[in-house]
């Protein structure tokens, strides 16, 4: 006799409570970051030595602002998932692990939020 509810059984997730979502999101964001990070590295290299007005003007262009916003969002998701795996693998003390996992989330939201607010102020207002 199984103590599982029918819903729990049909979800097929077991005691881990989640499936391959983490793994998949890490791969999908990785694939998206191939063009996005390539675009950013080449753009920043080409902006080297330019004036403040020229650099600001570059990121104010709608396409560039969009790509930069996508880079920030996708990078933040990817880095949050990746650092979480490192913490899960290396930090064996559960109290420390939970604290670091929370700090990882907080860091991601703060850095991502600051970047997006700055980008919106630069490109939209």
């Amino acid at each position, binding site marked *: 006799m199984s103590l599982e509810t029918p819903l729990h059984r049909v979800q097929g997730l077991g005691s881990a409570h989640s499936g391959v979502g983490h793994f998949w999101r890490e791969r999908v964001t990785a694939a998206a970051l191939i063009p996005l990070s390539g675009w950013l590295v080449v753009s920043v290299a080409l902006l080297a030595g330019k004036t403040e007005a020229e650099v600001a003007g570059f990121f104010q262009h709608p396409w560039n602002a969009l790509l930069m916003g996508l880079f920030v969002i996708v990078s933040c998701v990817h880095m949050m998932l990746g650092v979480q795996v490192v913490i899960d693998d290396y930090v064996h003390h559960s109290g420390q692990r939970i604290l670091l996992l929370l700090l990882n989330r907080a860091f991601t939201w703060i850095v991502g939020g600051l970047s997006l607010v*700055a980008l919106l102020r630069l490109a939209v207002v």
Partner: protein
Amino acid sequence: MADNPQSPPVRERPLSPHLSVYKWPITMATSITHRATGIALSLGMIVVAWALIALASGPEMYQPFTAAIANPIGLIVLFGFLWSLVFHFLNGIRHLAWDLGYGFAVPTANRSGVLVIALSVLISAGLFAYGWWAVHGGLRA
């Protein structure tokens, strides 16, 4: 979990990963470097946020940012960030190929590892040299 009171006493054994026990084959070195560069890039996002905040706040905030990345420590951080990004980018493509089932044979994985290391140094040094040339006279002289 290990602290189940029902289970018999367990001998303390070292937990994986054993970074200090084994020799470092190329595949292990690139795997660990992938994680290390990933963490470095996460911290580097602080610099990205700083750059965007400085740009959004006008010239009087942008000048201290460019001064900070132009001093020797800033240049080391900048090159470290660039190399980490290029390495993680190239080795990430290698990981995605593995996820699709390609390149798993040991000689292939060793060769792609050497290729990723060599290309990451060449590309990041090339981009950095271009940036240096563009700032120091090249475009504006």
